[in-house]
């Protein structure tokens, strides 16, 4: 087990902070001391790990944060900021990134809507009597012999009199409404 001061020296060596003479002394010690060599190797691995982690973390920092960092630095230094141009994503890129972000929401909504639609189809009421299913005949034309006589429900003939006649032949009924003006002397 080495002294704490030796360990600090080893750490400084691993970080490259020792001058040439002190570094040569540590190298000599490490060659002779197995324990010191193991510690130095461990320190090297630890440093590598830390570096990799920081590199990965920096990849996730959005460009805009870097922009702000550059601006802050420029402001502190007092020079105009030279911000590296940031490429804006295109329409498709924005749409796909939106879906990536909200995929879960859309799927949840779609599944719920499907369930509601299924329930709606099961519980759907029959079409109202007044509406006619497309494609079906609107009105049934009865054979002439089976047709009922027409009924004049209301007749208003302002300034005249109305005469209603019902004629029947093999083609069916004909309702004739003849309007005679009040001042007509000779009517039909």
């Amino acid at each position, binding site marked *: 087990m080495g002294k704490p001061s030796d360990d600090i020296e080893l750490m400084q060596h691993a970080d490259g902070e020792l001058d040439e003479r002190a570094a040569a002394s540590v190298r000599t010690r490490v060659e002779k001391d197995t324990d010191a060599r193991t510690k130095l190797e461990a320190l090297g691995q630890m440093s590598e790990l830390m570096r990799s982690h920081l590199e990965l973390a920096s990849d996730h920092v959005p460009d805009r944060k870097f922009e702000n960092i550059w601006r802050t630095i420029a402001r502190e230094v007092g020079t105009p900021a030279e911000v590296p141009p940031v490429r804006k994503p295109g329409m498709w890129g924005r749409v796909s990134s939106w879906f990536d972000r909200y995929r879960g929401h859309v799927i949840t909504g779609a599944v719920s809507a499907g369930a509601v639609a299924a329930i709606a189809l099961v519980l759907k009421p029959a079409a109202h009597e007044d509406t006619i299913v497309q494609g079906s005949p609107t*009105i049934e*034309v009865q054979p002439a012999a089976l047709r009922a006589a027409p009924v004049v429900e209301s007749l208003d003939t302002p300034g005249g009199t109305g005469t209603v006649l019902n004629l029947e032949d093999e083609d069916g009924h004909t*309702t004739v*409404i003849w309007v005679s003006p009040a001042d007509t002397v000779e009517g039909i």
Partner: protein
Amino acid sequence: MRALFALIVTIVMSGTAFAQPKAKAVETTCDAIEVSASNAKDPSIDPDIKHIQKKLTDFPASWNVFKKLSRASVTLEKGKPAKLDLKMGSGEATLVEIVDKSKLRVAIKIDYNGKRVVDTTVTVEAGDYVVVGHPISGSKKDGHLLAVTCK
């Protein structure tokens, strides 16, 4: 936030599912034939209205000359008045309702010289005719007839 978004998507998509195809409107197609009737030495009838000759000659009048003034196919939608393009005066027809699948309750209005001549509502079997007529001003011996059949 996630729940709210899912709720909005659900409402929008359910609305689409609930939206039923628009039902076809209740309507009928009518044939409106406008005829001028008069009396002459030589009887004649326009070939285009030959098929309703009986309905015109059976008319209790002494006319023997019938000329087609206009003929139009008009679609009447329930409750919506449709204009009848007449050569003499103006007209309007409305499908009030369909009764027992084969009868039509139709309202017909005719104006002549800016005055209402007739306003009537008739229930008639599909295929049957309603002929509305009035004397033409002047001689008052000639007639203006409108024959309407719907199916």
